[in-house]
């Protein structure tokens, strides 16, 4: 693989860009692999990448029913933060955030990680206490966050209305190294690196059945025929329940729609990410100038990738109240994704009742930020057959045992 660099750009500029290679190959499936990953979203691709990078396992196929990165990875609002409350979450999300810091260099692919700073507004006294608690927890966990007063919020976000009529801003939980990244580039960067290691990314290949023998996985039936494998990783987000059923087990997961929208592009006006959990909305500005806005989840199971309109109304109402200057802004696009929600709002990285079959799911509304750390932990789980320290607390037996990792309070808004 040719490296991307400023010299490559100069060279290609001289010859009408004739020399760029395809970023990844599109091979036909082989009969047998050491490991198959179902789902070429960010988490599946990162899992494959760290299987190769950290464990030298490269006889790997990543099977994708659509196109790579076309699921939630390509539909999210790209917020990256690690200011979670519980220790296992802080460890996993901070691992991911840390890996994002150098991901462009590591993959030789510009993922546009932008640690521009992230604020979670406190707009009730209850929220103030909650975020002070999170700041203290983060201090003990080694995650850098701090509490800031309204005056500093206003300084960081001049367009904000600090003393709104319903919910004045009482302060904020501030993570200076939180921010955003380019979602597609994360998928594409990992895909290119996986392909370069000799892994097969097979798109337009839907898994339709899982085959097993004596309780051990043997292979998968796909729309491109049967493919054998020693190990299987299921990383399919919204469709986790369907693929788990093929493998013979049920999950504590419900699939619901989550929506987002972007405005017409405007001049730079906000260089941090702002989340307002009480009024339920969050917003950042993309490099193109669009205001990127996240909405709420529907309260019912839905696989259609489109959500209910009243969420858009609620979100925009909340944001117009928080940022009065956006009231005349036109919205350009709106879309939805099918997110996989667990009861404690924490993911599942787990062994399954089927031998050598592992699952990574339940990231729900907030898994983009976790992609590198999740891939890291999932690769270890698949390679060793047992979870390492990052994944250990996220096994699905935690529900049966009552060991929830409750983040539903720490993240009151979908993101």
């Amino acid at each position, binding site marked *: 693989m040719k490296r991307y660099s400023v010299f490559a750009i100069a060279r290609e500029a001289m010859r009408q860009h004739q020399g760029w290679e395809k970023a990844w190959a599109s091979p036909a499936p082989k009969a047998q692999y050491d490991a198959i990953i179902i789902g070429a979203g960010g988490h599946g691709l990162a899992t494959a990448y760290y299987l190769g990078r950290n464990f030298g396992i490269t006889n790997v196929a990543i099977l994708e029913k659509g196109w790579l990165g076309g699921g939630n990875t390509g539909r999210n609002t790209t917020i990256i933060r690690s200011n979670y409350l519980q220790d296992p979450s802080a460890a996993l999300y901070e691992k991911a955030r840390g890996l994002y810091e150098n991901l462009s260099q590591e993959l030789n692919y510009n993922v546009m990680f932008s640690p521009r700073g992230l604020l979670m507004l406190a707009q009730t006294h209850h929220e103030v206490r909650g975020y002070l608690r999170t700041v203290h927890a983060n201090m003990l966990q080694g995650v850098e966050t701090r509490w800031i007063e309204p005056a500093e919020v206003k300084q960081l976000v001049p367009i904000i209305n600090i003393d709104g009529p319903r919910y004045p801003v009482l302060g904020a939980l501030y993570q200076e190294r939180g921010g955003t990244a380019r979602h597609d580039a994360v998928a594409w960067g990992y895909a290119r690196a996986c392909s370069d290691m000799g892994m097969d990314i097979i798109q337009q290949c839907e898994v339709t059945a899982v085959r097993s023998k004596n309780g051990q996985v043997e292979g998968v039936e796909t729309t491109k025929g049967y493919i054998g494998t020693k190990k299987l990783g299921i990383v399919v987000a919204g*469709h986790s*329940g*369907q693929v788990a059923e093929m493998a013979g087990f*049920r*999950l*504590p*997961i*419900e*699939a619901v729609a989550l929506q987002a929208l972007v405005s017409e592009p405007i001049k730079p006006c906000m260089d941090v990410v702002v989340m307002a959990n009480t009024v339920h909305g969050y917003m950042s500005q993309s490099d193109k100038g669009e205001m990127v806005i996240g909405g709420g989840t529907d*309260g*019912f*199971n*839905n*696989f*259609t990738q489109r959500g*209910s*309109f*009243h969420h858009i109304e609620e979100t925009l109402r909340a944001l117009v109240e928080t940022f009065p200057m956006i009231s005349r802004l036109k919205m350009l696009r709106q879309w939805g994704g099918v997110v996989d929600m667990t*009861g404690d709002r924490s993911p599942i990285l787990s062994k399954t009742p089927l031998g050598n079959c592992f699952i990574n799911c339940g990231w729900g509304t907030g898994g983009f930020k976790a992609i590198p750390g999740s891939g890291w932990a999932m690769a270890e789980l698949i390679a060793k057959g047992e979870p390492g320290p990052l994944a250990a607390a996220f096994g699905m037996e935690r*529900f*049966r045992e009552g060991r929830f990792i409750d983040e539903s309070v720490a993240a009151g808004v979908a993101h």
Partner: protein
Amino acid sequence: MLILECPYCGVMADETELSPGYEAHLKRFGPGASDDEFESYMFARKNPKGVHFERWRHAYGCGKWFLAARCTATLEVFGTYPAQSSAPPAALVAKIKAKRPDWEGF
């Protein structure tokens, strides 16, 4: 927007008037149950892509709980029925079967 007919007051209620209650007809297990039974009652969910039976509450209306049959892949509503039912009414099952011949049944 999802619109469901409340089987008690007959109102065609749109989603903003309703509260969702997720999977219906769960068999309850309590004291004396095995760990497996209790776990599957508490947590394991069908979450089907297709025909689904759910609980809803007419929260901003008559306030009553009722049950609905819906397709999660198309958002088609097949019908609603009272909460005091241990299985969907036979007529509703027949109607769904006619529309979704591949459905494995209730």
